[in-house]
Structure formats: C-alpha cells, structure tokens
C-alpha cells in the first residue's frame, strides 16, 4: 500500500491543504489527548499500583472498558452523555464547549480510547518500584510528593513514556468513535475513508502514506528515548 502510489501523487497530496490539515489535526489531537491521559491517569495509576481498597477491581474493569467495547459505541456513549440534548452536554455548551463536530469532541474521544493504555502501562511501572524505596525516602525527610518525584517517577518514567506512546498510537489510529462524534473537522483516518468512499483506492492511498510516515517517525523518536543510553539525570534501570 505504501509503495503503490506514485511519487508524484504523494508529493501532490501533501501539498493539498486539506490533507496537510487533517494529518496535523490527527497528530496534535492525539498528542493532546495522550497528555490529558498522562495528567489524569498518572495519579490513578499510582494509586492502583500502591493501594488496596474496596472496589479496586471495579475501577480497573471500568478503566479497561474502552479497550473492549466497539469503537462506534464509545462515540455514541460520549454523545449520549455529552451531546447537546443531554444535561452534561448542556453544561458544557453553557461553558462554550461543543463536542459534536469539534476538536474538543475529537480530543474527548481520543482521551477515552487512549487513557486505559496509558494507565495500565504506568501502573505496571509503579508496581515495579519497591515501596520500600518510597518508605526510605519518607524516613529521610521527603514528604509523599517529594518522594514521588525523586524516587517513584525517575524509576517509572520509562513505563510512563511507553504508555504515552501507546495512547498516542491508539488515538492516531482511532476512526470508529471519532467519526460519530466529529466527521468534521476531519482527522486523517476520516479523510482517508472519505476519499476512499468518494474517489476510490488510488486517492486514499497517498494520504495513508503520509499518515503512516508521520506516525512512524514520531514513534521511533519516542521509543528511542526510552531505550538504554538515554538517561534523565542519573536515571538508569
């Protein structure tokens, strides 16, 4: 598929405003969604890794839910609670946030599909940090926050980056849920789908080529960061 389109078609495609904008939207909404997943998911991942509490299994099951249910259902569910005819949607609307057919809507969907992957990866990273290390840090005078940032985070950051990359990857590849919430503005998978439907395979392939190229480049960069040799301060595992 990558080799089939001619070089000229590929060059011409990326010069199209629509293609360029859709790929850019795909990447940045996915990265934004993954960053939100990090912000929301890190405390949750840490709590799940460290503590036992009643209902923990239920929380874990709910987190995994977006992985197992069909993607259009996720889109429908989001519209169901946050569409303009529903209470949450009305509250959001009164705040000037519209999910249906907006970037905010796309990012919301991508947060839903990407966060479980991030949480599971970060959680296993925190689980691998011996709690005694945190205990020792506490006895040496660090409070809970300081011990997290000086001990747990430097030891678990690789898992967090891996989780972030997976969340981005998952978000870039999302189609089914996004297409229900926001056909426009078009992310790359929706554009590919539309071109395929309207003009056929030959017109969708160059777009696909560029989406794959951009995604792979990003992921190789991020993966390289988490390999041995790259260190943050004195971090080595």
């Amino acid at each position, binding site marked *: 598929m990558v080799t089939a389109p001619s070089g000229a078609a590929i060059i011409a495609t990326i010069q199209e405003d629509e293609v360029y904008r859709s790929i850019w939207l795909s990447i940045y909404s996915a990265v934004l969604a993954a960053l939100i997943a990090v912000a929301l998911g890190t405390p949750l991942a840490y709590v799940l890794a460290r503590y036992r509490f009643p209902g923990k299994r239920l929380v874990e099951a709910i987190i995994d839910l977006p992985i197992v249910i069909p993607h259009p259902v996720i889109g429908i569910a989001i519209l169901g609670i946050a569409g303009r005819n529903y209470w949450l949607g009305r509250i959001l609307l009164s705040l000037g946030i519209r999910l249906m057919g907006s970037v905010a809507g796309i990012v919301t969907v991508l947060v839903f599909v990407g966060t479980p992957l991030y949480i599971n990866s970060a959680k296993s990273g925190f689980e691998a940090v*011996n709690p*005694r*290390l945190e*205990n*020792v*840090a*506490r*006895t*040496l*005078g*660090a*409070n*809970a926050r*300081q011990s997290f940032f*000086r*001990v747990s985070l*430097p*030891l678990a950051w690789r898992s967090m980056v891996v989780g972030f990359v997976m969340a981005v990857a998952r978000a870039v590849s999302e189609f089914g849920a996004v297409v229900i919430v926001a056909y426009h503005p078009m992310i790359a998978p929706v554009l590919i789908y539309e071109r395929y439907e309207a003009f056929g395979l030959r017109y969708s392939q160059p777009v696909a080529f560029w989406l794959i190229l951009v995604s792979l480049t990003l992921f190789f960069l991020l993966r390289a960061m988490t390999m041995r040799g790259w260190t943050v*301060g*004195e*971090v*080595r*595992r």
Partner: protein
Amino acid sequence: MTPGNTAVSLGGITVTYDDFCLDDVSLDIETGEFFVIMGPTGAGKTVLLEAVLGIAPLTAGSVVVAGRNVTRLPPERRGIGIVYQDYALFPHLRVEANVRFGLRYGSNRGSNGEAAHLEHLYDVLDLRTLLHRRVDTLSGGESQRVALARALATQPSIVLLDEPLSALDPRFREEIRRTLRRIHHETGTTFIMVSHDFRDALSLGDRAAVIHQGRLQQVGAVDEIFRRPATRFVAEFVGMENILEAKLLADGSARTDGGLTLQLGGGPTGGGPTGRGPSGGSSAGAVDAPAVGAVPAIGAGSAASEAAVPSPATDGVPSADGVPSADGVPPAAPFPAAEGLPPRVRLAIRPEDIVLSRTPLDSSMRNGFPARVLAVQDHGPAYAVRCAVATDAGGAVGAGRPLQPAPTELVAYVTRGSLLELGIEEGLRLHLSFKATAVHVF
C-alpha cells in the same frame, strides 16, 4: 524511667491486616540503647518497625519518640531512620547521592556539622572508594554500609535495623557486627534491630524483646531472656532444648511428668554480672567459663565432659550460676521459696549446662542421672547428644530399675574432643549431671 531517657515508648501498638495482626505491643526503649526485637520469620517484627516509622497504619496504640507523641505524624516528621534487610538503595542514584538523599529536607538542610558528620560516616563506614559507584555494582556488605550511612546522614535519634545480618555471607557477619557496635558507640544513636537469630542479640544487644505471632513474649536484658525465658516459646527460641513439664514438691524440688525428681536452684543468687557484663559483648570464638565450675577436671580421670562449648548459641553468655534478675521478669530463683508459682511448672535446662561423664560425678551437681545415648548430631562447633534418662537416680523410682518405657529425653552439647574422649556413640550408657541452678523454672 523518665521521658528524658526513653527514646521510644510504644503503647499498645496494634496493627491489623487481613492475614496478620500485631497485638497490643508495649515497649520502652531507652536512649542510646541497642535494642533487639527477636522472633521467627512472620512474627511481626518488620511490621512493628514499620509501625514505629509511621508506615504501617495503626489500629490502636501510640508511638512516643523522646517524649513527643508522633502517632499521627507522617514518617518524614518522626526523625527515625531505617536500614532495610534488602537495603532499599535508590537504584537510579549513585552511592554518594544515596547517602546525601535526606540532607536537603527540613532540619537536615545545611546544618552546621553536616559536612563533618558526612566525612566521618564515609571514614567509619569505609565508603570513600565507593562514592561514585552505581549501587547495582555493590556487594551485600557494601550496600549495607551505604544504607547505614544514608540512614545516619540525617542524624536521626533512632535507627531501625531490619535483619541487618541475615542476608550476608556468614564471614561478613562478624565484620558488620563490629561496624554496628562501633557506629552505635560513636554516634550514641538508639539502635533498634530486628532479627530472627538469637546470636545477633547475644553479640550486639543490651536488651531485647521476643515477639511471636504478633504478641510480645518477653522483654528484658539479653542474658535474662537467654537464661530465664518466660514462656515455652521463648525457651525454645533461645535454644533451651530441654523443657520438661513438672510439679513442684513441698521440699522445693520438682517432679517431672516423666518421673524425674529434680533439685532446683537454691544457691546464691548474688554476685553475677548485672545486665550485659563485659563478657556479654565478646565476639565469636571467645569461650566463657565453663558452666559448671565444680566438676572434677578431665585430667582427674573421671572423663567428665563439660558441656561448655563455644557453640554459636552459647557464645558470649556469662554463665555464672547466680543469674541476676533483671527488671520485668520475676526471678525464678532462689528455691525453695517458690511462692506464687503454680504447682504445675515447666523446667528448662540449657543443653550446654548438662555434663556427660562415664561415672557418677562426685560434685556439687545435685542432679545426676544414668542415661543412654540415643543419637549424636553434629551441630557444627558442638555435638548434640540426645540421651534417654533413667529415673532411678532421682530417688522416686526404685534403684536399679531399668529404663522406663518412655524415658525422658535430654540433649547435651559436647565438644568433639569430649565426644571422642568419652567414646560417645549410640547406645552408650553414661551419666548425665547438671546443677540445681541450671534448672530454670517458669
């Protein structure tokens, strides 16, 4: 005990987990003391340490450190350091950064003697050559020294040691013991060490507590626990292999369920070293005076074998007959005056207090029985000789009667030399004696 010299006061510490609980543990540990908490694996020792640290949540009880109630304070505000059994060094930091980890917080920051203190620790713990090493390249002993330095760097008033010796190669243990003793003396820090090995307490501890299944069994001077265990569990834990159920008789002796009549210690009780005498801190290899001084010498032809063996279990214990009673535990001696003791008691005799000989000993030892060797077991430095004891010498059963069907079994420790000299082997008939004062009643 005034609050001024109590380092830690634990009041009714109770920690409840799903499958374990620490039940109402109360302890006072004095400032500058080397206190040892002993118990088998799973007894709750580490949980107790974590309760003191503020890591294990208390169901009930209080922790008072130097007169300050810290029960509700987080670990970072208690001023208590810990050295974990697995050292828990920060793997992402080099040795020096590990040691200096706590220096930036709270009252530790930029304190005056900080640099000097750190230099001193580097010297005492021999860390200079290690400072730039990664911690995953350190040996067990090196890791331990780093963990100790890290805990001491912030100058805590109390340092908790979680099984510091058990993970180490045996030949490093004595070195670490020496280091711990030295650091303890030099810093004046209160050390609380957890161990499942009684030898650690003997070589390091001032006082000790024995814990079993989450409950405190006995607290007192190490010698006191060693010589006068309060419960059957403690007796077994400290190596009292000979424990007999018995009834006290009116004349001050005791009659065991196996039919032996034992004379109980009524001898002088004064004069012994109080607490940890100088010999109490002696290192491995030092042999204390024989347990039984009045035995005819081996050279006299009686072939008596004194059971004073430099076995690990007995090393360093002053074995004067009159054991002083330390606070907390009511003295079991002297007899006969055993008022207050129930008619049913247990008798315990240390295996190293039992003397084996070919002929009855004409000595001050008031308990002597003919016996037959059942088994000989190599215990490293000592041999454990398991004997079946006939009841005829006790006077209660007619003289000359053969061994009873279910004879009482006693274990004695002898050296290899004695073993050969007496020709001890299975089935040998010989004499077994011990002093009245060697019988501990509880």
